[in-house]
């Protein structure tokens, strides 16, 4: 598998209701009820006057299959990957995000400061 690549994302922090109502075609990871990570530059305007919307260069991304993601987590994590959707947790001691799509593709996101560790620890 390939090494993760630094990417830029769009980060949206807003009230849960505003995020629920947000419609976007972008690849989206709901990190928490009030926290949304969108892959790429996305123009979104959540219905929340205090929303924080900003470019987020803090991530590196690796594409893989859902099966590869499951194997990776079995080998380097102590949790299991859901059939679809987002998963967050420690993988080889690194805080990672996974997005599994039901078609069988998966994205692994690693905080950019840990990119080199991810390359070393997640072959």
């Amino acid at each position, binding site marked *: 598998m390939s090494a993760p690549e630094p990417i830029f994302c769009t980060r949206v922090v807003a009230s849960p209701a505003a995020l629920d109502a947000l419609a976007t075609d972008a690849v989206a990871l709901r*990190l*928490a*009820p009030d*926290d949304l990570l969108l892959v790429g530059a996305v123009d979104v305007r959540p219905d929340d006057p205090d929303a924080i919307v900003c470019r987020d260069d803090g991530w590196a991304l690796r594409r893989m299959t859902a099966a590869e993601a499951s194997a990776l987590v079995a080998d380097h994590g*102590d*949790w299991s990957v*859901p059939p679809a959707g987002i*998963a*967050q*947790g*420690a993988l080889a001691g690194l*805080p990672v995000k996974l997005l599994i799509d039901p078609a069988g593709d998966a994205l692994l996101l690693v905080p950019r400061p840990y990119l080199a560790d991810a390359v070393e620890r997640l072959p």
Partner: protein
Amino acid sequence: MSFRITCPVCGARSSTEFRYGGEVPENWREVWRRDNPEGPCRERWYHEFGCRRWLTLVRDTRTDEILSYE
């Protein structure tokens, strides 16, 4: 040994993914008061390796069994 904590956002994870926030004080002016009970203890845990949010739970300090979540 670690034990499992079920994060309401992320699901069941090892306690090693969490930062321990200590007992929940009765009020924030008395945060230095720690009862350190032997048995059920209401406490805060921060899911550092996942959603980075706090949760409150009741843990039996003798067995590390999580008795309830809030």
